């Protein structure tokens, strides 16, 4: 059992009974924050009663505005008003298509994406963190308390670089990330728990800028993802673009200012939304030159013009079904998620494909945040009536470069995470002491067709004849879907661990610097909070370790080991009397390290305990 879980409810004197945790849907066009209150998840509204917070950030000379407040600047200062930043997350500048058509000024001398604003260059991670800060503030005002942790949703089809970027943005916003979870999985949680659905479900999630399809088996609180697929750049935005293009062509609007382009898109979106309710729609667009045009559009024309976009979602569905080894008949229901699924032709396309009615019981804009809030509530350690277990998968295969520019797959797509796979390598030259490894993500066979995640060099291999060294490299994907790599030389047992940092994300140093800057602005409250948190964590771990020792210590540990742990506990508990957070943190860390192998042993004990009473099956013997 977990060290902490061993503590019986009555034994521990934990100061906070109910921990405030939120679920955040960080969307391409809109973001939401939700929380579980009196057992039910609810979207938290901002002061003006809005549930949807537009994912827009305006950088003025002396002010930053996020959400609704940033909206007006779209049509007056497009260059400093960043929209759809999610599309840039985890990407290099060279990945951005149609750069010229965007209103932003990029830093051309950087491989990273950096957008020039009134406040200097902004990295997509910083821009996202400003959105997250706004959501955090909204939640703290609404809940009248401090947020202890957050679950942030990401598209299931996000790769490692995009996930890492999202996590970095959260760190920068001062959020404690309990878990990154996939958007369709979060939606399934909301449906499975709130609507009590059981069976095999397809979650069709068409958001503002991303498309995901996940197939899940829901059974007694276990949510098992069987397969996932998607399209990294396909969403409601593309339908707006298509309408804007129609308006431009019909009216021969060639030279438009960036502000006019933005307003064209805003009008296009309004038209699209109107066509959900009525069969035709009309809008009047006023340009900065004073020119005015009237544009009307009927459903049929719109559907025909965007039929290809709708069709693009079919291929990923087929792939997911094939990977899950399921036919259409074995699907019990299709859940529609994301605002873009409101479009009638998307609905009829999917209904036709599955030959089944669609599930629309929950608001497609809210369902992801609601599911994330459920998960956040449980992960924060709050008691929950349901026994919830999410078994998610990795969307893309992971491999390494081999001879001839080919990729050898090590972890296959749709493997349940966490997962770890080891691969052994050897040297090909006498006396070789270093070796480079290129890690890639993707399904294609050639290196050039896959996403390069990291290129690193293993050094310190003891010199031997060619082929004698045995280097074991372990690739591990954790529950957030993030990769880490460790390597050890087997004959000498030398271990090195590295976390894979994509080459165009922020370095650890950059993040630390940004964090420092934001800390400097913060008041003394922060220090008091840090001390308070350190003390709570220290107290908790002492209780947990003491309990674990009382229960299993003498069975699993030697007297010497117990003595060492006890003296570390003593040091920690005496440091709790002093108001020095660094000292407490360092003693806590020390005790944690000392109990590492004890924790592993207890994990094995839990496996045994889980299966106790279930003797080896008689039928098979």
């Amino acid at each position, binding site marked *: 059992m977990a*060290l902490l879980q061993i503590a019986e409810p009555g034994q521990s004197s934990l100061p906070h009974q109910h921990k405030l945790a939120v679920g955040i849907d960080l969307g391409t066009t809109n973001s939401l924050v939700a929380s579980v209150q009196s057992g039910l998840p609810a979207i938290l509204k901002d002061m003006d009663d809005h549930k949807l917070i537009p994912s827009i950030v305006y950088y003025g000379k002396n002010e930053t505005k996020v959400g609704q407040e940033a909206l007006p600047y779209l049509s007056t200062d497009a260059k400093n008003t960043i929209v759809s930043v999610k599309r840039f997350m985890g990407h290099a500048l060279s990945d951005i298509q149609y750069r010229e058509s965007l209103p932003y000024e990029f830093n051309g001398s950087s491989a990273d994406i950096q957008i020039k604003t009134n406040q200097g260059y902004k990295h997509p991670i910083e821009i996202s963190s400003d959105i997250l800060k706004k959501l955090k503030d909204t939640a703290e005002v609404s809940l009248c308390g401090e947020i202890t942790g957050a679950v942030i949703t990401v598209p299931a089809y996000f790769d490692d670089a995009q996930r890492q970027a999202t996590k970095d943005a959260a760190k920068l916003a001062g959020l404690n990330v309990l878990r990154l979870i996939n958007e369709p999985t979060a939606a399934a949680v909301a449906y499975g728990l709130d609507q009590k659905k059981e069976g095999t479900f397809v979650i069709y999630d068409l958001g503002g800028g991303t498309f995901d399809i996940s197939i899940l088996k829901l059974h007694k609180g276990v949510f098992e993802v069987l397969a996932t697929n998607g399209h990294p750049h396909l969403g409601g935005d593309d339908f707006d673009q298509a309408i804007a293009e129609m308006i431009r062509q019909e009216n021969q609007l060639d030279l438009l200012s960036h502000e006019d382009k933005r307003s064209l898109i805003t009008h296009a979106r309004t038209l699209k939304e109107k066509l959900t309710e009525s069969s035709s729609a009309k809008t009047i667009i006023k340009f900065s030159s004073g020119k005015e045009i009237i544009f009307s559009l009927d459903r049929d024309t719109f559907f025909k013009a965007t039929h290809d976009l709708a069709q693009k979602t079919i291929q990923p569905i087929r792939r997911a079904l094939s990977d899950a080894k399921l036919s259409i008949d074995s699907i019990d229901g299709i859940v529609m998620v994301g605002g873009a699924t409101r479009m009638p032709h998307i609905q009829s396309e999917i209904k036709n494909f599955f030959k089944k009615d669609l599930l629309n019981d929950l608001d497609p804009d809210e369902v992801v945040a609601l599911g994330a809030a459920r998960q956040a509530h449980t992960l924060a350690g709050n008691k929950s009536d349901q026994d919830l*277990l999410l078994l998610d998968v990795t969307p893309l295969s992971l491999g390494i470069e081999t001879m001839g520019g080919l990729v050898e797959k090590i972890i296959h797509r749709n493997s349940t995470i966490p997962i770890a796979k080891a691969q052994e390598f050897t040297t090909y030259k006498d006396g070789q002491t270093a070796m480079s490894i290129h890690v890639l993500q993707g399904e294609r066979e050639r290196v050039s067709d896959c996403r390069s995640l990291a290129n690193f060099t293993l050094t310190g291999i003891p010199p031997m004849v060619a082929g004698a060294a045995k280097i074991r490299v372990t690739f591990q994907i954790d529950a957030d879907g993030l990769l880490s790599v460790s390597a050890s030389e087997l004959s000498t047992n030398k271990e090195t661990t590295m976390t894979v940092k994509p080459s165009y994300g922020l370095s650890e140093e950059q993040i630390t610097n940004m964090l420092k800057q934001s800390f400097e602005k913060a008041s003394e409250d922060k220090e008091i909070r840090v001390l308070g948190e350190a003390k709570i964590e220290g107290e908790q771990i002492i209780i947990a370790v003491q309990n674990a020792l009382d229960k299993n210590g003498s069975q699993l540990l030697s007297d010497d080991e117990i003595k060492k742990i006890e003296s570390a506990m003593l040091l920690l508990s005496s440091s709790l009397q002093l108001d020095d957070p660094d000292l407490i943190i360092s003693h806590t860390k020390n005790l944690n390290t000392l109990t590492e192998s004890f*924790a*592993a042993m207890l994990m094995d004990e839990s496996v045994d305990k889980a299966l106790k009473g279930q003797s080896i099956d008689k039928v098979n013997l």
Partner: protein
Amino acid sequence: MSLNFFTLLQLPETFVIDLKKLDQNYQSIQKEIHPDRFASLADEEKKASIKKTAEVNDAYQTLKSPIRRAEYLLHLHDINIHDEKYTAVPQDFLMQQMEWREELETHKKNKEALEKLASDIQKNKNEIMSQLPKFFENKSNLNDAIKVTRELNFIEKIEQHINDALIEII
């Protein structure tokens, strides 16, 4: 040291296993040790949980698939079927393989033909698969187990290629 996958999931070390039991044991263990149970706890416990869960996931995926399970049983006998010394494939199977591949190439855009091919191969696969249990019953039959497992590996690959081709057809 990692445990034997069968021991870890508390199943007898045989080719024929109770799949329901496998699912049950897997989920019972996951409920105890999954990282979600440790999200608000200390780092060392999170690490230990990820490591153990990854091991259990690997064990589960391996035992769930009959082909992976067969490979793993052979691995427990120190046999790696991808090793060079087992590369020889019987002539008739090789011919069959080539026939299938040719058919796939000729009918790459023909949905009905591909579906027919897939169902033929499926039949063939089931037949081969049905021999596996008896080859694993007796140690002296391990060479047959190797042969059949290798054949199944080939079949699995061509099935994947047919599936990929089918997905491309709209």
